[in-house]
């Protein structure tokens, strides 16, 4: 390729470096315009100017040959922070690609064959940096998703104490193997920690009970039984009851209730707690007098 071109790549590269140095203020100003205009309102212009200046310095340093780890680090940081702040991929990429257009105006003014030859080399460099930015952007987005999934797993499985010796697990959303595992572990641990003998598994928030969900529930109940605790499944809505019957799932001797209140009442009865309304108590007292 070098044979057919009258200008060697090295000369082009040198010319670009010179141009970057000579026109620093002009290129930076134009770069800020391009990068700023494409991004939507949530851009702080002065901080963007600071970021671009830093990138520009790092780019020149890396061209000088003093290592480019700083430039890559800065770009990675920029794309990470933009991904977290909810910028679109285009808004992020344009920050890098904008430099091409910004510099091109200076090259046009210069007009020398070295500068034009160098611009091809410079384009490739910026393309590489752009790809790097996108890779970091995607990685940062994936990290956000993974973090959220983990948080959801933690958040969605609370074990609450309803009464002395009675704990409840309100299940919300899709029950897959991973979540059931977490639920089961947490429930069994809570049974040990609190010394509870009754557990209520409330499935009001589970949209559909298929055979897999049912199997997971059954296994949890059996495991709790092995530890000496009785489980009640509550929150069975009419459509779920219909579906379970049609599917042919047998809950056997497991106690099921329509609402959490029913399940609590059942567990209280089982543990020997009796409720007397205040009126009756007064009546009893007068009798004693």
């Amino acid at each position: 390729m070098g044979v057919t071109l009258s200008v060697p790549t090295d000369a082009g590269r040198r010319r670009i470096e010179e141009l970057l140095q000579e026109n620093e203020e002009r290129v930076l100003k134009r770069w800020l315009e391009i990068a700023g205009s494409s991004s939507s309102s949530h851009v702080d212009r002065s901080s963007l100017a600071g970021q671009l200046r830093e990138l520009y310095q790092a780019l020149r340093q890396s061209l000088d040959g003093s290592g480019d780890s700083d430039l890559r680090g800065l770009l990675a940081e920029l794309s990470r922070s933009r991904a977290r702040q909810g910028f679109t991929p285009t808004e992020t990429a344009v920050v890098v690609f904008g430099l091409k257009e910004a510099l091109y105006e200076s090259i046009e003014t210069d007009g020398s064959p070295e500068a034009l030859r160098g611009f091809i080399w410079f384009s490739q460099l910026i393309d590489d940096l752009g790809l790097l930015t996108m890779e970091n952007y995607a990685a940062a987005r994936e990290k956000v998703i993974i973090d959220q999934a983990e948080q959801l797993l933690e958040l969605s499985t609370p074990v609450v104490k309803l009464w002395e010796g009675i704990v409840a697990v309100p299940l919300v959303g899709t029950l897959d193997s991973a979540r059931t595992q977490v639920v089961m572990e947490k429930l069994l641990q809570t049974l040990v920690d609190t010394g509870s003998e009754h557990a209520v598994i409330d499935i009001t928030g589970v949209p559909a009970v298929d055979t897999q969900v049912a199997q997971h529930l059954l296994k949890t109940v059996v495991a709790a039984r092995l530890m000496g605790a009785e489980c009640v499944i509550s929150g069975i809505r009419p459509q779920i009851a219909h579906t379970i019957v049609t599917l042919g799932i047998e809950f056997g001797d497991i106690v099921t209730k329509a609402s959490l209140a029913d399940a609590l009442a059942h567990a209280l009865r089982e543990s020997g707690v009796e409720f007397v309304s205040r009126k009756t108590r007064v009546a009893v007292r007068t009798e004693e007098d």
Partner: protein
Amino acid sequence: MTTPAELPVNSNSDVVLVRQHVRTTAIDVGLSLVDQTKVVTAASELARNALVYAGGGQVRVEIVHNGIRKGLRLVFSDEGPGIPDIEQALTDGWTTGGGLGLGLSGSRRLVDEFDLKSAPGEGTLITVTKWAR
């Protein structure tokens, strides 16, 4: 949503997406809450079957008409090992995968029309339809 939708079933999260899509379509068709839940559960079973036994497949969700009646049709297809004995596979309690053995037979009871085509080595094609009342 009149155009049929093709959804892939390649992971557990795909099963969730299939369920959500079937639910929205079932609401569009005008199925009652009980029927919605039934068809969603059947979709969940069949999609999971495709995932567990065939390693993945796809499902087509479409709205069908029979006179003035509207219905929801789901076509599950996979290129898995196929089912050698369909009669046995449709028996309550029969399982090769450690489940309850009710997925296939239960799904048949959850829908109005159930059609299963399968042969060893040729994959499985299951078409189910639920009509609005």
